[in-house]
């Protein structure tokens, strides 16, 4: 039986996000803990436009989890967020 997808993760693949640490997010799949691995979908999306805003520093890379923006994302931060949600 396949588990339902509880989390839809969208990684910004715009260049700004990519060079500001986003490149490392492409190994997210390998860092997901076993218990949530199957309930997560990961996709790349084009620039979300956040890099055009003033004061954009320290926001990149950006990721959406079920539509909610995570700024300055890292694999670690994303996993933590996912685990928080699963506990609820």
């Amino acid at each position: 039986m396949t588990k339902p997808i509880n989390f839809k993760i969208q990684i910004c693949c715009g260049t700004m996000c990519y060079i500001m640490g986003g490149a490392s997010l492409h190994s997210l799949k390998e860092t997901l803990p076993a218990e949530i691995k199957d309930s997560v979908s990961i996709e790349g999306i084009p620039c979300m436009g956040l890099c055009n805003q003033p004061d954009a520093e320290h926001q990149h890379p950006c990721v959406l989890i079920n539509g909610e923006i995570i700024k300055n994302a890292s694999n670690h931060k994303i996993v933590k967020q996912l685990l928080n949600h699963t506990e609820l």
Partner: protein
Amino acid sequence: MTYYNNAVRTKRELLVRLIQLLDSEQLYDKIDRIPLEMRPRTNSPIRCCVHKDRAVLKYKIMASLGFNIADEVDELTPLKDYAKEAINGIDSNGKFLTVVDEACSSCVQVNYTVSNLCQGCEGRPCQVNCPKDAITVINGKANIDHHKCVNCGLCQKACPFHAIAYLPVPCEESCPVKAIKKNEQGIEVIDFDKCIHCGKCMTSCPFGAIAEKSQILDFYDSLRNKNRKMIAMVAPAVLSQFKTKSQNILSAIKAIGFDHVMEVAEGAAITTSNETQELLEHIEEGKSFLTSSCCPSYVDLVEKHVPALKPQVSHTASPMLFTAAKAKEQYPEHDLVFIGPCLAKRKEVYDTKKIKYVITTEELGSLWAALHIDPSKLDTIDGISGNINPESRGFAASGGVSHSILATLGADKNISTQLIDGIDKKSIKLLKAYSKKAPRVDFIEVMACQGGCINGPGNIAPPSLGLSNLKKSIAELSPEPELINA
């Protein structure tokens, strides 16, 4: 290879800002504000205070403009003045690294330190075994006298509580040729008679205190404002650094404003055929082994540290130089720009004088980010050459050169190869040994960066991504997959 960290982030942010200011014609008005904007008073400082943080940024900008920081004459010279000078190009004197002394935290002078795990035991093996009498016990805890300590490490080995810690100095530790050392003030200084521009000190310093001297402003100003016509020569390793198809990467490079984009893999094919020929002659003449010569850091290493190995190094020019020759034939009036992950290429370009600019992959990413060029949306280029064989693009990963030569020779030639994957203290020892007593092998490929150019110091993608990306793009560009030996 670079692990992403905040110092890397700062470097890229500075590049993006500089390019944006130049592009929007605000460089002179706003360059001196960059440190203020990036380190506002409201943030908690990284160092002692916000002023120090800003000073560090100022000097990092100087490096990005291409200056040697130690050459500063007047501390009050605004960045604007430096930018004006940088636009017209700065002579690097063949030295492409500079120490941001303000950022160098002057790591420990002495590598051993007693931690609070010290139990002040009766045996005191640390004290008893110290050959320099550097250890005294004060208030029941061992203490190392930094004036006497010679970093031998015996105390650490002797302590049964593991109470003595080893604190490395990352740049010194990573330098394979002992080219970086502290001066009396504790600030690191690079000895360019020894330096081989491998970039390991730069990527290892967590303070970002070792900066490369960039040509980015001069390059972009010539392209945008002086209307210079330019040809991009793209190293195969660049194709491994982005999560988009090669077609898109090359198109996006063209979109910066180049007249034409060439792959350096074109030159790699010529390097392969010449080097194969050279190898066969070498064997025929009964000379011992031949080594590759396409890694400029390795060639410099032999020159400066293992001169006895010189007769063994191939005389074949690098793929970059063959590509440059081709480009000059077709476009004699254009400026040539090499785009790749390599710091040592800056030196090779300086020495050979055929190419005008070197832009690293990191700088390429910063250009795209600053100019809002999104490779995933561009795939219009006609630049991908169908004539490039997959082995030539494979030069970007360790083993690629040997593989390419073996593929040229075909199965009937019995040639043995060896790979030296990364220049470090150990492999230098090995090379020195080989210079005295030849190993039983025909061809040795040497790469300064472990894993090859896909792990070069000017890259973006983490090491784990590079190889799989490269394989993917090679497969995508050519019908037969599985062409790198890794």
